[in-house]
């Protein structure tokens, strides 16, 4: 067991993946000497060389498009997109080639690449640095999308993602990069696509992922002070979603609140709510509610707290599903 931040855990996970497989390459902007703007790749170029830790030209489609070719050649590229809001130039390569080449080639090509995407808000940044684009990728067949929220998950999930044969959008909640936690260097906690009950409870199920997990856990603490027992599920995998764990929970509590930073409309939170309404119809005592960012461009950072799902908004939703009378 070791104590480290999520950024360091990702760094150690990448290091271990590179040690285990010489075909693993890292590419991205400023990931070499600088170690990435979040220092996730700190020291890796020094240890693995410029051929394996590639400082790329400043063009996101180029990063992903060349990674596709490397994957065809048998490499395992791990791309870093510097910030969520800069992934869109690569969107075409991701949805047109990354997601489809395995299928188009009848399985001959293995698109075993990972696209690391620091995402989400709560960091007081300027525009394009706080977005939650995971829904675009979750919607696309051929891709998988995961998001760790603890250092231990980060350490293991990055390695599991790199060794997986499908392309994975690896969403890193950057507001959690500097939080420390225990990392078990010997045993992975669970499979890459398995949800985790982050806190057990009886009255309400809160399903969330990424940067909102911490907020949901704080809300659960506050609710407990009022005598309400809230179960918090960290989805971990955004696509596919691990509905087994969620269904078991909702069948127990009968109430569901879904929390995410991304706006609710046509979103991952919409999918969670719709599917659980379908699968748990006879267990539900109230309609599922969602607490998300509003349907606006991400706001200037001085008012991001008012935009994002907050402890108060989550508590309000918990009150409403408990107080609902049919």
């Amino acid at each position, binding site marked *: 067991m070791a104590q480290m931040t999520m950024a360091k855990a990702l760094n150690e996970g990448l290091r271990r993946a590179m040690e285990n497989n010489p075909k693993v*390459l890292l590419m991205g902007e400023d990931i070499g000497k600088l170690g990435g703007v979040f220092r996730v790749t700190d020291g890796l170029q020094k240890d693995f060389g410029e*051929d394996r830790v590639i400082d*790329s*030209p400043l*063009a996101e*489609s*180029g990063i*992903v*498009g*060349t*990674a*596709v*070719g*490397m*994957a*065809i*050649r*048998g*490499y395992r*590229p791990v791309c870093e997109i510097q910030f969520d809001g800069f992934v869109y*130039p690569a969107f*075409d*390569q991701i949805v*047109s*080639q990354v997601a*489809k*080449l*395995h*299928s*188009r*080639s*009848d*399985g*001959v*090509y*293995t*698109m*075993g690449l990972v696209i690391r995407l620091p995402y989400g808000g709560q960091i007081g940044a300027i525009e394009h640095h706080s977005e939650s684009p995971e829904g675009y990728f979750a919607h696309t*067949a*051929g891709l*998988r999308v995961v998001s760790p929220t603890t250092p231990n998950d980060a350490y293991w999930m990055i390695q599991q993602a790199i060794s*997986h*044969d*499908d392309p994975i959008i690896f969403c890193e909640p950057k507001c959690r990069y500097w939080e420390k936690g225990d990392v078990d260097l010997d045993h992975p906690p669970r499979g890459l696509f398995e949800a985790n009950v982050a806190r057990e409870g009886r009255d309400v199920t809160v399903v969330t992922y990424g940067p909102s997990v911490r907020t949901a856990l704080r809300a659960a603490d506050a609710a407990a002070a009022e005598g309400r027992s809230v179960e918090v599920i960290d989805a971990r995998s955004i696509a*596919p979603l691990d*509905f087994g764990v969620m269904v078991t929970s909702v069948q127990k509590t009968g109430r569901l609140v879904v929390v995410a930073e991304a706006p609710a409309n046509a979103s991952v939170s919409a999918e969670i709510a719709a599917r659980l309404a379908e699968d748990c119809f006879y267990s539900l005592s109230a309609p599922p509610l969602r607490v998300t960012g509003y349907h606006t461009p991400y706001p200037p950072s001085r008012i991001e707290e008012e935009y994002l799902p907050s402890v108060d908004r989550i508590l309000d939703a918990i009150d409403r599903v408990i107080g609902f009378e049919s």
Partner: protein
Amino acid sequence: MAIGFELKGESMSEIPLVQLLTPEGERVSHPDYDTSLGRDDIFAMWRDMTIIRRLCNEATSLQRQGQLALWAPLQGQEAAQIGAGRALAPNDFTFPSYREHGIAWCRGIPPENWLRMFRGVHHGGWDPQKYRHSVPTIVIGNQALNAVGYAMGVQRDGAEEATMVFFGDGATSEGDVNEAFVWAGSFDAPVVFFVQNNQWAISEPTIRQTKIPLYRRAEGFGFPGIRVDGNDVLAVYEVTRRALAHAREGGGPTLIEAFTYRMGAHTTSDDPTRYRIDAEVEAWKHRDPVERVKAYLVRQHQVPAASFDDVTEEANTLAAKLRDDVLSMPNPEPLSIFEHAYADVHPLIEEGKRDMVELGIAGGGH
């Protein structure tokens, strides 16, 4: 150049262009390029061009008869593709767009496989690793970046292989192609960019895509560019052969602009009479890539008429086989859509399969 007519404001005679065989079929010399190809090699290239033109015509007929959803004809570009395709070494890897039937032919891919996409039974059609020829890319320019990445992999493997990527004049406006140029230049990737400038991106002339000759773009990205007469199979072969060797030897990328002409429509859905004049098409007929080789073989090597007739007969036989293959091509099983959507087990795939079987959309037992 034998023909000096004005082409969209650009005088052909003013642009340096590598040519070894004139439109009249006369061998001419070039200070930097020569060929050691003999009579049999050149006859073999004429055969290639004749066959792909015949197969392409058959495909157009099949589309007109409702057997293909679409076809992208290559008429006029036979020399560009056969010259480039025959310059490849077996281990080189190629990335096509969707009109590279001549390259597919050179790579040994059975013609019926090229037509699977156009018939609507597959999005690819062949095993790209087996034939060293990637699957079609329809999103314009994506494959340029994929090719550079592949070449960077070759570079890391220390292998003596070249990667060649094909795209058209329209694609040179795409961000991906320009990013591919940046990457290739920056990393000295062993890649050859082969742009077939067929003068038209559907209805838009090349002058809409570029203010300077396309081959000169390379200079700004830091690697050599060269324009070759794309209707001269000997020149295309020699220019490509040398660029591929340059890449294999660690010399970095080259941009080859094959200056050619799309004699037919963009695809069978297109109507070029709406945007270009007959006189232009007529002028290019005099520069036909196949006829000039035949004229040369007759005049210079006294190849007898029977030899040409044999190939025409062979092409007809292949076309008939292609027709039979297409007509007997089965539709894919509905459940096949789930087969390679993911490499590993995925719950939504399992759910979709169950749904299809339960609803009777597809038979069970898979």
